[in-house]
């Protein structure tokens, strides 16, 4: 099915065949941030968590915020890839690979945040040897392991026909591509196996993904702390995750579209559809946030109100109102009218949401801890260079993993684009025809009409 002589999609293979100066410059900048992060972590590893701004009562800060943030972004792959595949949306074709790569790469970074947060990382194997399933952290470990496994499988299986194209077209890394191509020749039987496996994974990966961010939220909601012990946390976190995931995906799409000249494949219509999804998620996120805070405010429980006031007017007001601005006001203003300058508006909204969703995680974690129930004295959390370095290094490491991936494998699914050209139009036309009142059901012989 994949004819190696088909050169229409040369731009998709070009980044693998050639490497320009821009790549080395980008990697250089990323490595600088990663070194900062590594130095920061080494300082913490040798001297203890005291080099951060954490203290009693705010014993969780940047690292746990980052953990929730990065795991949240991992929901990009699931929503776009799985749901769009299941709903047979044709516009997904150039987008799915990028989404799936985000998920796999960011899960490593997200899980790493918890390891960075440990006071005794040398004892991390204790979670495996002596784990307790009553603890939400073990639910996290299990769920994220399942999601990571499923995402890698869900990324790899649809990559197989593309790897076969690389095996046949590209001169270098022969062994790698031959091995990973799993003997793909595009036969009918192989195609059937692949399609069935992708369909099963698309269905399986959605509940796993929902469970991941739900159990991440349970780390907070299973405690008794004010404004954490809330039943809405499960769905709230999932919605927030999908929200931030779409935003991260759009940023990645814009970046690689520019870097690799993919304007022919990632067109304004793709950004328009994703922008509309982002708008819907922004409104949904606002609805959950509003319900959460109105409930707290109306109930007027003293300990909850202490935390509430800390966010609304107290020391954390810049982050809270900044979150409202970047998660709701700016995206809605940018996305309601996507007529002209689609990509610019969608990019601005996405960058805004990425910042906003980090602020949202921060606003959930820190104000509750800094306002304990007993008259302990309010805690003010001031992160140090170590925590900033760790955040910068983590973001840079994620970006580096992503960029390296695009140098080895195609960042847009070549065979699915070709499938869209060869088969997609016809399939869609037939499907549309079955919707209309005058045509028979698909698969029914016309002679049976009128019985």
């Amino acid at each position: 099915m994949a004819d190696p002589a088909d050169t229409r999609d040369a731009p998709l293979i070009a980044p693998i065949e050639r490497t320009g100066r821009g790549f080395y410059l980008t990697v250089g900048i990323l490595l600088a941030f990663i070194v900062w992060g590594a130095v920061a972590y080494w300082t913490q590893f040798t001297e203890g968590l005291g080099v951060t701004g954490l203290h009693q009562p705010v014993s969780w800060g940047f690292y746990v915020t980052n953990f929730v943030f990065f795991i949240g972004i991992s929901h990009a792959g699931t929503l776009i890839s799985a749901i769009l595949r299941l709903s047979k949306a044709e516009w997904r074709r150039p987008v799915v690979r990028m989404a799936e790569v985000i998920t796999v790469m960011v899960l490593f970074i997200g899980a790493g945040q918890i390891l960075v947060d440990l006071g005794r990382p040398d004892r991390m194997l204790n979670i495996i040897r002596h784990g307790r399933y009553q603890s939400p952290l073990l639910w996290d470990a299990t769920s994220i392991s399942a999601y990571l496994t499923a995402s890698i499988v869900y990324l790899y299986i649809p990559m197989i026909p593309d790897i076969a194209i690389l095996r046949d077209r590209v001169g270098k890394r022969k062994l790698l591509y031959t091995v990973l191509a799993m003997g793909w020749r595009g036969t009918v039987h192989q195609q059937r196996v692949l399609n069935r496996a992708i369909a099963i994974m698309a269905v399986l990966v959605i509940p796993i993904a929902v469970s991941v961010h739900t159990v991440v939220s349970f780390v907070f909601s299973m405690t008794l702390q004010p404004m954490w012990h809330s039943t809405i946390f499960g769905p709230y976190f999932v919605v927030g995750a999908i929200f931030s995931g779409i935003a991260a995906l759009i940023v990645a799409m814009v970046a690689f579209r520019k870097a690799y000249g993919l304007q022919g494949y990632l067109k304004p219509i793709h950004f328009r559809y994703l922008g509309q999804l982002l708008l819907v998620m922004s409104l949904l996120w606002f609805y959950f946030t509003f319900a959460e805070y109105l409930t707290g405010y109306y109930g007027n429980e003293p300990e909850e109100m202490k935390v509430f006031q800390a966010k609304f007017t107290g020391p954390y007001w810049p982050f809270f109102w900044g979150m409202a601005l970047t998660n709701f006001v700016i995206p809605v203003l940018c996305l309601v009218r996507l007529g002209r300058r689609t990509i610019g508006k969608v990019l601005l909204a996405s960058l805004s949401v990425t910042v906003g969703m980090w602020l949202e995680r921060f606003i959930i974690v820190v104000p509750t801890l800094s306002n304990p129930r007993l008259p302990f004295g309010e805690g003010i959390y001031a992160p140090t260079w170590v925590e900033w370095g760790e955040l910068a290094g983590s973001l840079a490491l994620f970006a580096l993993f992503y960029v390296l991936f695009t140098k080895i494998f195609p960042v847009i699914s070549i065979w699915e684009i070709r499938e869209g050209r060869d088969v997609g139009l016809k399939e869609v036309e037939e499907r549309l025809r079955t919707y209309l009142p005058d045509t028979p059901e698909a698969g029914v012989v016309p002679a049976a009409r009128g019985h």
Partner: protein
Amino acid sequence: MARWGMVIDLDRCTGCQACVMACKAENNVPPVGAKEAARGRIISWMQVLTEEDDEHSGEVKRFLPRPCLHCDDPPCTKVCPVYATYRNPEGIVAQIYARCIGCRFCMAACPYNAKYFNWHRYQKDAPGQNPDVSLRPKGVVEKCTFCHHRLQRARERALGERREVDPAEYVTACAEACPARAIVFGDLSDPGSEVFRLARSPRAFRLLEELGTKPKVIYLSEGEGRG
């Protein structure tokens, strides 16, 4: 089976913090230094909290000595991922430093903020320390243990002398040190003990009782005319 608990009479407490100092001396609680203290990292297994008067700000209304409350339904043990903190059959919530991975989930879950963390390597070998209590390394959580080492000592002594443990032999450092005798420690399941009697006083109340943690440190509110 014993059920160790404590009664603290707030009417007797003067806020002198002798209990705090005795606890630190007994349990090798490290001084963290002025710089770390300013950053909010003081380790104080027994801590005297002060409730300020709502009307006259700055005026202390009540001193609240707060050890670990050794809850019967502890929120901290539920969330520990590695069995580093658990409730033993005698009701003491134990902390195992060798198992703790320093995730600080128990600190986030405790509604009384009774848990403390070693943000640096605060403890050093120094003369004059209590040999019965192990030093904590960097990166683990620690908290009040109801001076459990004293119970072990009393049991060993009784075993050696082939007799039962006398309830008066096991007393926590804070209870022993309090000059106002505000802190009473003992077996809540022993009808003859003083804690048993005081726990049933009409002045008795439990801190944050509505959370359902079932703490075994019971407070006696101030007498008539106050509290």
